[in-house]
């Protein structure tokens, strides 16, 4: 008898990220993701830019002037955060995929099967985070698989294993969420009032993330949408509206046609 494994995920605690980018390298090494060029981006120490077909982990660097905790004097803050596919509870990419290349795995993660993907690209605008993308010269869509092959082998994903400071934690989602709440409480207790979780709420627009974050500022600061909504959420409503609109239109046409005779 087989039992379903618990849903697993990432808890990325950006308050302990040292911006070493080991996650980016480990991800590329394990998943054989191609290098994507030497681009000096003038964006602090970030020369990766964004998540994409050839970047499944991306460390953002944000330099800020902020009031220091305690004396309130203005000081520098350098935020670092390793972004990744959110593995949404309600994943629009998966909803729109016509070939079934995108599927929900037994671990609760969202995975693209390269050998099934036909490169239609519907998933790309469907993602509220801009995570998934098509690879140039290949045409197929690629993104983080949460190292599906490693999970099946009983290993943790490459990025989590490479992270030296446990900024990227992997495990059963329930456990991660309670650990994350405790961490936020500790940070608040230490006067880090800005600490908040992003994507840990099951009632948010995507039903909670499988890969959620502890942030030290508004999500927008990190280039993340503040209130992401699964783009396919309104599809049923849209159809209803479409039907109503069609009925109204029919009525209006009827009025126009018959009213004119009055």
């Amino acid at each position, binding site marked *: 008898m087989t039992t379903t494994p618990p849903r697993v995920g990432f808890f990325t605690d950006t308050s302990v990220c040292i911006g070493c980018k080991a996650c980016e390298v480990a991800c590329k090494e394990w998943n054989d993701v191609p290098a994507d060029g*030497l681009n000096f981006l003038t964006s602090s120490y970030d020369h990766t830019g964004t998540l994409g077909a050839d970047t499944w982990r991306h460390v953002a660097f944000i330099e800020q002037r902020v009031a220091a905790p305690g004396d309130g004097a203005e000081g520098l803050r350098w935020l*670092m955060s390793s972004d990744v596919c959110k593995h949404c509870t309600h994943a629009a990419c998966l909803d729109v995929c016509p070939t079934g290349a995108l599927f929900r795995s037994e671990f609760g993660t969202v995975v693209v099967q390269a050998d099934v993907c036909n490169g239609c690209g519907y998933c790309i605008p469907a993602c509220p985070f801009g995570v998934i993308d098509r690879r140039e010269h290949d045409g197929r869509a690629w993104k983080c698989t949460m190292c599906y092959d490693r999970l099946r082998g009983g290993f943790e994903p490459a990025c989590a294993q490479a992270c030296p400071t446990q900024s990227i934690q992997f495990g059963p989602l329930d456990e991660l969420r309670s650990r994350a709440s405790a961490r936020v409480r500790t940070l608040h207790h230490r006067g880090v009032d800005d600490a908040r979780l992003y994507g840990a709420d099951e009632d948010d627009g995507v039903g909670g993330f499988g890969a959620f974050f502890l942030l030290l500022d508004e999500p927008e600061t990190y280039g993340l949408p503040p209130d992401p909504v699964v783009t396919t959420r309104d599809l049923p409503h849209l159809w209803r509206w479409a039907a109503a609109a069609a009925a109204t239109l029919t009525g209006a046409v009827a009025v126009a046609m018959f009213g004119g005779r009055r």
Partner: protein
Amino acid sequence: MGSNMAECHPVGFQWVMEAKLRGAQVIHVDPRFTRTSAVADRHVPIRAGSDIAFLGGIVNYILEHGREFREYVERYTNAAHLIDESFRDTEDLDGLFSGWDPERRVYDRSSWQYEGVSEISAPMGAPRQSKGIATGERHGSHGAPLAGHPDTDPSLEHPRCVFQILKRHYRRYTPEVVEQVCGVPRDEFLRVCEALCDNSGPERTSAFCYSVGWTQHTVGVQYIRTACIIQLLLGNIGRPGGGILALRGHASIQGSTDIPTLYNLLPGYLPMPQPEDQTISDYLDYNAAPTGFWGHMDAYLISLLKAYWGDAATADNDYCYGHLPRVSGDHSTYQSILAMRDGTVKGFFVMGENPAVGSANGKLQRLALANLDWLVVRDLYEIETASFWYDSPEIDTGELHTGDIGTEVFFMPAAAHTEKDGSFTNTQRLLQWHHKAVEPPDDCRSELWFMYHLGRLIRQKLARSTDERDRPLLDLRWDYPTNGDTSEPDAEAVLREVNGWDAAGAPLSGYTQTKPDGSTVCGCWIYCGVYADGLNQAARRSPRVDLDWVAPEWGWAWPANRRMLYNRASAAPDGTPWSEATRYVWWDADRKRWTGHDVPDFEAGKPPDYEPAPDAEAEAAIRGDDPFIMQADGVGWLFAPAGLADGPLPAHYEPHESPFGNPLYSQRSNPARQMFPRPEDPYNPADGQPGADVFPYVVTTYRVTEHHTAGGMSRFLPYLSELQPEMFCEVSPELAAERNLTNGDWATIVSSRTAIEARVLVTERVAPLEIQGRRLQQVGLPYHWGTRGLSTGDAANDLFPLVLDPNVHIQEVKAATCDVRPGRRPRGPALTALVHEYRKRAGLSEEEHA
């Protein structure tokens, strides 16, 4: 301080983060706000090159406020020792210590001695100095010999006791002076002092972590000495959570000093013999201390000679001691490079190093390489040191022409650490064995393979030689077993020899078993025990869940698997722990033995109240409450009567190139620093000299996480290159405005050596500082780049001069001066023209500096 640990040691930094999670306070003192600062509790910006003033200020704070750990200082340091009447401090001589010889620019250290020590430590004696070796060549890394018993004043009141001398020496290092010299506001500085003192004492400990931000200065050794003084005053040495941690730049730099790649040391910090050390007996007379564990130097040396020359080494031939080379002066890397330039050194092996990028004054390095007969470079890729003859800045400017270069370059592809067996020794002296994961590709081979087969072939060629000079090679025991198609020598067989064996061939289990009678073999006495019981102890990997927090069965630490040196100091003089919180090693009165979490760094059965007989020798001369067992007097040295070339106490000196004067003394820079004024190595004028304003900014170098040192292991890899794709400079928004620099655009950085270009990264992380009423801009340069690989760029070290610390001959590349201008640098001969124009403006004559 002097370290960007999160960026340069990210794996080790996980433990700092873990300590932080448990409530530790992390303070980062650094010219730049780095990734370390980002996760520290406090970042204190400081002017590059001013750390002794900052640390000296802390010493003064401790002493003025009585914050020292009194009992520790009284009993475990030389605070009570009296210094010779003839000693004069920098306070008396305006920046010089007594004994300065201005003509030869060296110190005679006889006046720095303890009072009552009849015979001054021989290595520092005048006869030796007259041979021009007034620097650190004489010493291993530990203490110096001592004869006689120093006079002391346990009340620490005597005006000539070390404690009072220390007080006077640092009295003027006030918070106001710190602010003037370092640019650290008074309140900010005092907060650091308070945090450090509040977290030291019987109940708590604090540690310093440093890297080459401290060492690569003309006063580098004295930077670390100042930290030693602080840590001894606060009782933070030999106790858990304390210490001064030297973070190394590569995986096994510690290993390569233990079993050295240094010219002046033999394995285990035995000094290299000098020409006048004709026999073992001469050598021991000069080097072996009669008291402390160096008292057994004869056993360590003779066991080493037996490891080298096996059966050929006998008592009759002085164990082949005569085969050892003699060191006649400074033959460090920079002197050797100059000798290549001057044509006296003809051949050069380069392994695990890329001097054309990684050493100061890159042009001089490359001109020297071009003057060799032959050069062997072993590396993973064809690095700049191997390609200089057709691809280098000098080829571009026309200063070198490929057709004129006679150097025969042999590039030998090397195996990576994943492709060979071996050990890494980390900063904690912990040896960790690594097993080969994959075969090296193609012709790539390990260093062990190369050295073994090179030796084998040379010995084959010399087999019939009757020339005496070939005896050292022909007498070597050179019989390592080999494996596989490539005849790879067995690395464990080398480890076994390093460990050593007894007359019956059984592995030794510790260095106390080495004997001076030729019956034991030991390749490195401090590593003895790493192969105890015939097992590779460095390969132990017991999971931490099965071990206590000291984890004694993870790898193996020298000496004797001790995880902390001088841990006798973790207990009070009576042998009881200083506190429950810092309990580590203590005296078990019932069992009459030292015990604890770690292997005691003390004779296990020596009681705390042990008093040596007046004529006791070696470790028997160390009292039961003297924890510093490698020192001849058993105590930690606040004042160093021997061992240093540039003073018994650290004093603040300006970097060789500095836009500021020294507000503390009229002696501006370290008087004993090594300089090499020659046409290829001009110096920027410093403050007060004409032309100093031509180079108004301070420039410092560093590494970033994404690249590895001189780039050989990172610039050739796409996954690393794309993460930091180009050479860049970090400048403040103010400097950008002042010099018209645009973020992402190009800047040219100029010194009197050369000019380099870099992409501009404008950032508030490099803050301007107020120094002596002037606003100072600092320019930050990573030094990873060169002409080869996927990610290429100019080499930062090309900007820096050859000017060295006199103790260890390290280059000053953490603080110098420069100018910055917008745009890319000129190409071809126009580059040399630009540098010449700068030299002219700075008043550096073209005859001297052509």
